[in-house]
């Protein structure tokens, strides 16, 4: 079964699922960061131009900092998120799912010199396309991974129905599916709802609209609304 998730198993037997991020959203995040850096450089240049030659020296230092330290500092301080990555809901984590740490942030951003060769991050793009977790060379060296941050989503309201149970023990995945059905029912056509409810007729002992209603009731019951 194919999924874009890297599974890491901790010694306690917990499977961490890291939804790896590929080149497309990362390129957009880089573009946003690039625009921010360009703005910073322009602002610094126009402010420091009042100081003539002395300002020019400071300007060069600022330029160096924005070019090299910006991603390292952002990833180190804000838990692996530069502003661009924050907008795109990405985060850099260690390969085992832990926080990134300064050394890794430093390594992966230093390796940009290689990834950006020969033009426009072509090397990084090719490795990112080829690697199963979408890593560029810097990530492979620093043992990091860029992941999609799971968004806190508000649970949609359930379809209302008088709660009642069924006589069978449902497995966790099945319970989740029943609840998902009740949550997503408003986005499905009535025919499709009936179709899905007919599938579990052996459980609900009903077909059609009544089966749908019973599934809603079961979902309410599973969520403890008695």
């Amino acid at each position: 079964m194919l999924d874009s998730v890297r599974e890491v198993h901790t010694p306690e037997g917990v499977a961490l699922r890291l939804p790896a991020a590929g080149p497309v959203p990362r390129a957009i995040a880089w573009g946003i960061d690039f625009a921010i850096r360009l703005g910073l450089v322009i602002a610094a240049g126009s402010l420091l131009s009042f100081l003539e030659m002395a300002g020019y020296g400071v300007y060069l230092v600022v330029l160096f900092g924005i070019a090299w330290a910006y991603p390292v500092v952002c990833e180190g301080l804000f838990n692996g998120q530069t502003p661009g990555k924050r907008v795109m809901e990405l985060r850099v984590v260690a390969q085992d799912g832990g926080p990134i740490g300064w050394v890794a942030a430093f390594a992966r951003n230093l390796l940009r010199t290689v990834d950006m060769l020969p033009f426009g991050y072509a090397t990084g793009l090719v490795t990112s396309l080829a690697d199963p977790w979408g890593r560029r060379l810097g990530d492979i060296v620093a043992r990091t991974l860029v992941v999609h941050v799971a968004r806190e989503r508000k649970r949609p309201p359930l379809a209302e129905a008088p709660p009642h149970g069924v006589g069978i023990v449902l497995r966790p995945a099945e319970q989740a599916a029943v609840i998902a059905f009740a949550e997503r029912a408003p986005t499905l056509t009535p025919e499709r709802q009936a179709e899905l409810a007919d599938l579990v007729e052996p459980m609900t002992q009903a077909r059609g609209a009544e089966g749908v209603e019973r599934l809603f009731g079961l979902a309410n019951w599973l969520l403890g609304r008695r």
Partner: protein
Amino acid sequence: MRLDQVRIVLRPRSSWEAVELGMALVRRHFRAILRPWCLVTLPVFAVVNALGWWLDLLAYAPLVLWWLKPVFDRVPLFVLSRAVFGDAPDTRATLAAQRTWGWRAMVQHLTWRRLSPLRALYLPVDLLEGADSGSARRRVVGGSARGVATVVTLVCANFEFALLMGVLWLVPLFAPPDRFSDALGLLSWLMRDPPTWAHLGFNALYWGAMSVMEPFYVGAGFGLYLNRRTDLEAWDVELVFRRLRERLGGAAMVLLLVVGGTLAIAPPARADTTVPDKAVVKPKQEKEEEKEGPPTLPRLFGEGRASEAPFRKAVKEALDDPDYRRKETRKEWVRRDKPKPGTVEYEESPALRAISDFFGMLAESALWLLVVLVLLLLLVSRKRWLPWLQDMKPATSTDSGIDVAPLVHAARLPDDIPTAARALWREGRVRAALALLYRASVAAMVARTGARLVPGATEAECLRAARALQDNEDRDAFNAVVRTWQYAAYADRLPEEATFEAQLARMAERFGWSR
């Protein structure tokens, strides 16, 4: 479409994660895509360039190739749409499909919809759901994914450009530094007034960049499409419901006609694609059934024959399982490469020699000094470590607060228990007095009930044995003694003298101890 054969993890995803899934699909089946892709695009490339050469319009060849992209996109889409159901077609099947598959939608995709940024998202709708899908269906499927699809198109175009420019930029990058400006000049001259070979080279580069990027672009769109269908029709829910039905013993195969257009991804009938085995020369056998003929499986099962690819894959996965193929990685320290003999000889000057000797002597004497210091330290602190060497117990302070009075032997109770207990109490050995009272009570209880107590019986066991006492009063008195003893022994809560006296008197009266 058989949803129970799907080979991807279906779950509600964000649009970006759907893009990742599509790209992962392409990554897994890249080889299956690339071969037919080359076989389809290279002839077109050759024809277009030859025409361009002939008409002296070589510069427009990349434009034509770019314009024909929707036609080429059918290759990865065909492979992916079947690979999702675990039945990735081989090159031959893909090429055969290219002749007939999906041409109807090409008219609009090559004309007024060529510049649509939603091509990757809408191609699956048009090609996989049949020709009856109108713009309304496209809008429904597109839905919330259209924004992301537009951005993906933009980004992939930039990626293609980056790949193309990257290869071009290698020219000045590999030039020696002093000839760098020359290399740049060469590049600009090639841009301004290119000879024919430069044109052809550039066209080939463009074809290469397109071949790398386009499958991934189509895959991203296909991932978005699958995600939208999953959302719209709750595919993930359907999958779990089907398994639940199987678990409850229902019929597993319920064909669903998805409302709003089926995904016409049924694998093609295999009878015409399978090549009959070549006649194998076998030694003659008596059986006459062995006649060459078409394979019987398709004839028997026809359309309903399940594909063998998932089974083969399962076998392969089982064989690749680490339980079968154990690999161990061992790490151990090994010596680094020894420094090679034959170090460079050099002349020493006596002055340097003297200086180094002096420093060497300093360091050596410092080290000796350190040795002497350590020995002195050991000598001074011998009182602390010598006992350990001699295996002597470290001296304990006599005033540890632990009562080390010898135990009164438990088996022998004094004849006059109350007197002995009171004597202990007056001496201030309250605990010992209570212990004596407890032991005597237990002995009396055992004598009265005839219970068998194991050596080392706990207080609870004594209480349980005391239930056999006939008289309630006796039992209460005994229980009180045990409680008092427990409070004293385990909680260090000693009773008042009056309480002790009362209990003692009560026990003496009940069990007939001499006063």
